[in-house]
């Protein structure tokens, strides 16, 4: 079943079919609630695509991602509810805000590597949460922001209605994926992947590490800001909990289940898990009794998630059909190079 689904995805027409499905979904859905859930899944998916840039492609585990999502939401919320801006200018401001803050956080945090980067961003995420919670003069603290403007409509389109909003989110999602696809195939995306494969090699290929890492980070936070702003426009009531670290953990789960560093992974992971969570609504926190071990099993046995695993499988299938050699070799290099000894 899964493989069938996947092989469909491989075909060029599949993307169009998927898009077509998304477009007719509101008409297939039993009710508005399902459309609403799908729209919220799409919002999260956009944020997960952002995480995919910095973590999947560029290899830096950013644990402040949920924080930037919240900054996007709050920028839009505060500008519309308190400063009286209308939706679209505030929306642009939210993108700018997350990009600028992402830039500053990036230039400090990206000097750190691996665990240090992860833990540093964990702290940044937590500081964002605390600031939102405590800086009452600005954020209203735990009371949250109410009366956030919905996207202003065009003519007859009213975005306070669920279905028009769904299409709005879908448009942003399609744009996000389209851009991600183009990015990942472009020289810029390849640059990010080269950085993930190793700092030293990337540098010796003439890649400016800092500039590219910061660019990837800013892109990812802007995606998070975009998702956050849409979220605020959808729910129209936000509180400090939006910056909770659990949201970051959720997004990592979506990313990992779908397939880290892949193009369809974030969408599959997010939409899949959001729906499973909804249908197992009663499980709620207990769902972690299933998801926790699932996450562990996944990283041990399927480190590349559904899509990654599938792509590998497809590739091998294609290879075995084609005449020619097929040899398997893993982690050899490190071992043999350790044996061919190092100079001081």
């Amino acid at each position, binding site marked *: 079943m899964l493989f069938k689904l996947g092989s469909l995805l491989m075909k060029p027409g599949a993307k169009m079919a998927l898009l077509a499905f998304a477009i007719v979904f509101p008409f297939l859905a039993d009710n508005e609630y399902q459309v609403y859930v799908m729209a919220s899944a799409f919002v999260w998916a956009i944020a997960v695509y952002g995480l995919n840039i910095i973590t999947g492609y560029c290899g830096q585990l950013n644990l402040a991602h949920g924080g930037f999502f919240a900054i996007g939401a709050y920028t839009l919320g505060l500008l519309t509810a308190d400063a009286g801006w209308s939706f679209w200018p505030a929306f642009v401001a939210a993108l700018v805000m997350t990009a600028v803050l992402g830039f500053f956080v990036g230039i400090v945090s990206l000097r750190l590597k691996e665990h240090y980067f992860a833990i540093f961003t964990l702290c940044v995420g937590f500081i964002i949460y605390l600031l939102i919670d405590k800086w009452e003069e600005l954020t209203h603290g735990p009371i949250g922001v109410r009366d956030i403007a919905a996207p202003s409509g065009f003519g007859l389109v009213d975005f306070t209605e669920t279905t028009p909003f769904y299409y709005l989110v879908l448009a942003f999602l399609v744009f996000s994926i389209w851009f991600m696809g183009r990015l990942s195939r472009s020289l810029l995306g390849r640059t990010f992947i080269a950085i993930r494969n190793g700092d030293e090699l990337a540098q010796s290929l003439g890649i400016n590490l800092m500039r590219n890492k910061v660019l990837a980070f800013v892109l990812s936070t802007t995606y998070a800001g975009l998702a956050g702003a849409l979220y605020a426009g959808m729910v129209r009531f936000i509180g400090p909990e939006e910056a909770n670290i659990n949201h970051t953990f959720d997004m990592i789960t979506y990313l990992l289940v779908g397939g880290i560093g892949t193009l369809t992974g974030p969408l599959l992971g997010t939409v899949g898990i959001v729906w499973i969570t909804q249908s197992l609504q009663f499980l709620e926190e*207990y769902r972690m009794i299933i998801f926790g071990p699932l*996450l562990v099993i996944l*990283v041990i046995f399927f480190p590349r998630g559904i899509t990654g695993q599938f792509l590998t499988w497809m590739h091998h299938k294609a290879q075995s059909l084609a005449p020619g050699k097929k040899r398997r070799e893993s982690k050899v290099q490190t071992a043999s190079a350790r044996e061919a000894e190092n100079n001081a």
Partner: protein
Amino acid sequence: MNLFFQQIINGLTLGSIYGLVALGLTLVYGILHIPNFAHGALYMVGAFMSYFFMTDLGVHYWVAMAGSAAVVAVLAILCERLVFHPLRNSPPIHDKIAAIGILLFLEAVVQMFWGSDFRRLSSPFTGIMNFDGLIIPEQRLLIIVGAFVLVIALQLFLRKTMTGATIIAMAQSREGAFLVGIDANRVAMMTFAISGVLAAVAASLYAPINLVYPAMGHLVIMKAFVIIILGGMGSIPGAIAGGMIIGFAEAFGGFYISTAYKDIIAFGLLVLILSVRPQGLFAKGAH
């Protein structure tokens, strides 16, 4: 003036707890290079185990603490065997995600059995000592003394016994440890067990002046991470010193600056320090 000393006591109390938690974290990191995000969950399980032993089995506080330490040690070993050991050759991002998986799982399990209500762990040490206006509840003194004793005991174990020394040896040179015939698996399990014991004891010491609930580990573990980065990841003295720094910063910052922002102090301090010194305060090697 008394209030000033009161904050010293408070700083010591907090520092002791943070130090104990950070110590377990730093040991695991030193040996296995895993930033164990699930450590906070072990801390939380430790508190619940003590609660369970005292409330449901009716045993004495000390017995409950010992029982809790044993259970959490076993749990920690299981984490190592079932999760981290199979992942030892994976890219570093996978360890972290698996640790998050364990964290979510343990919290959910605890919540399933005990729900998410606040629970109260009562200790037999409810008295209050009053030194001319300086008030020290017995439990707080117990925390400080307990942490001190535990750190000394750990030091003695690591420095004076051959078994303990294998942990230090492993941390300093993995290959060297293999060459003298140290069994890596044994050391890994032992390290996890010790970190579990430290977390459980810290939780059991602290719970009587606090509440027991599934999310109780979140803030503590985040601060423990701050501490081990400050102290240099893998450094034992660094963990203790870092614990005290954060403990005092919170106590004094909370009192003289603002309680609302006291939690930011720890994280702000870290961000500030790492911006200037990416390798931490006490670390020798750059990272």
